């Protein structure tokens, strides 16, 4: 399967997951929100079930295709720590990430999420351009 097709199919499954969580549980499938609420101990059983499923997803991929999905780490531990801190802090401050604002926000035609997506895409492009500029 070409990279474009598998990306499209994977994306549609993510959308299906979001639709299921919304229609059945009435909840937004925003990963930073779900993980954050789980860390705070809110609604533990339901949030934990989602996170365990999320972690099990790549295992299902392994079972079906016989190999793990590709994960190529590109930076060393100092940048990994810095990036993790920024992602955690920023998603709390901006109330969402690629899933909550990106998938659900855009699907709900939320002006707030359009602005958030524009902001994090611009910053992401800036970060990669800076890395490339430094030869990383």
């Amino acid at each position: 399967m070409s990279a474009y097709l598998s990306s499209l199919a994977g994306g549609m499954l993510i959308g299906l997951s979001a639709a299921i969580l919304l229609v059945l549980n009435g909840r937004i499938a925003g990963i930073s929100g779900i993980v954050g609420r789980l860390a705070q101990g809110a609604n533990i059983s339901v949030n934990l079930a989602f996170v365990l499923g999320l972690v099990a997803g790549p295992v299902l991929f392994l079972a079906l295709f016989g190999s793990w999905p590709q994960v190529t780490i590109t930076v060393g531990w100092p940048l990994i720590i810095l990036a993790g801190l920024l992602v955690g802090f920023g998603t709390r401050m901006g109330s969402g990430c690629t899933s909550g604002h990106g998938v659900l926000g855009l699907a709900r035609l939320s002006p707030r999420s359009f602005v958030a997506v524009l902001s994090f895409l611009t910053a992401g492009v800036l970060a990669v351009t800076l890395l490339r500029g430094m030869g990383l």
Partner: protein
Amino acid sequence: MTSRPAQIAAALLAGILFGFGLALSGMLDPARVQGFLDIFGNWDPSLAFVLGGAVVVAFAGVTLSKRMRRPVLDTQFHLPSNNRIDARLIAGSAIFGLGWGLAGFCPGPAVASLSLGLWQTMLFVAAMLAGMMVHDRAYRTQRAPAHRPA
């Protein structure tokens, strides 16, 4: 019907679909994520199809939910009510985007790829949780003067 076990089962199913979808889509690979963000260099646009496919299917779910008075397994929808486009939204999203670009991980793929057992993703998730806690403490301190005793 409001059933906690059914809600847990629905969340588990949604989580598995989400994690499998991420694995299939290529979003778990930081090298590809950074390639997608590298629009001034060697741009790989394929991951745009992840967001496109996800938004189209999610939109169908949103449309269906708008015709429902309540979700199937709960008494009410739990949707964000904040409509404000403010500095917090823009700055927070920009800070997130910087981190996303630097390591090629956003929260979903980082948590999903914990299953591969790589120390780098464990370190990233630990740092992400720490970043969330730092924010919540700083924000509570910052907001404290607003909560005057009655």
